[in-house]
């Protein structure tokens, strides 16, 4: 099952407007350092990379590390210069990969 995400940005923007994009994904971000109930360390399970593409062009990307808390949240700005699609991609341990697409309208 795909992880739950919260993605928020203005559905319509004026051409050239700077808009804020905020995204959260449900992910445990298990650091690999915590002991489980049996005392042995839980295997690491984190997101490694997040990227946002605007009509195919990467406008924001980030690398994630074990010290980042569960359910990572990103907020960033971009210049809305044309309508199209925002694509959000998360990649992580154990082959985790998720892509979400949202339309953006520019008037």
């Amino acid at each position: 099952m795909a992880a739950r995400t919260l993605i928020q940005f203005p559905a319509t923007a004026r051409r050239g407007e700077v808009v804020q994009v905020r995204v959260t994904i449900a992910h445990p971000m298990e650091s690999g350092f915590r002991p489980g109930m049996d005392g042995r360390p839980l295997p690491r399970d984190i997101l490694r990379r997040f990227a946002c593409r605007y009509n195919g062009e990467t406008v924001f990307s980030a690398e994630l590390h074990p010290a980042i808390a569960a359910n990572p949240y990103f907020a960033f700005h971009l210049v809305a210069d044309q309508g199209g699609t925002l694509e959000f991609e998360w990649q992580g341990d154990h082959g985790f990969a998720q892509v979400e697409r949202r339309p953006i309208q520019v008037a």
Partner: protein
Amino acid sequence: MRRARAAVLALLAASAWAAPGDARRSGFEDMGASTQAMQREDAMNPAMLWAAEGEQLWGRAPSASSRSCAGCHGEPAALRGVAARYPAWDEALARPVDLNTRINLCRQRHQGQPAWPAEHEQLLSLETLVGLQSRGMPVAPRPDPRMAPHAARGEALFRQRMGQLELSCAQCHEERAGGRLAGSPIPQGHATGYPIYRLEWQGMGSLWRRVRGCMAGVRAEPFAAGSVEFTQLEAYLANRAAGMAVETPGVRP
């Protein structure tokens, strides 16, 4: 003079979550600005991930032969105000039940499904969704004479010293509220935001999980989830917070 000063202090302490002149404070007001912002803005509040999950569950029948939540209740908004009046009396069990137990009872009686264990993610998701419908409404337990003795018993539990440390809820959350315990502010303990997203947990938790932490902290044996005594304590807390605004889903450090 002293009384006048106390009145001024009470006015200063008055907040958005309690009516002006009310000395009761939500723990929200003692949080840092960034944590407050997380709760205030749905786009930042990780608890909304659970609310979104709850909405999925709401419309999905757990088996082919049973109805979904929506099949009986309609839209989640139909349950506006419900979370604000729980715990409430259950006729069949002839005892008060909290919202978690209510959801599980619905699941057993009308959907023919086994009850979820305490703190199950899906149970928390539905509780978050139902609680969210009452956000901003005043906590309003119904004046039910059958509930009164249970709430009174709950108050007795609140004031009962317990555990190896022999501390009662009241000793921290009334006598020492506003002080600090190991660097953390001691809140007045008004349970208006549950279930909460707690940064320390990195996840959602119910009031029971919070109370379990407190009880284990004073080296007492925690009440079982959904037990009569825990529900009695919840009933007293609801009376104690009556009139304060429901914050669900809250964020706490």
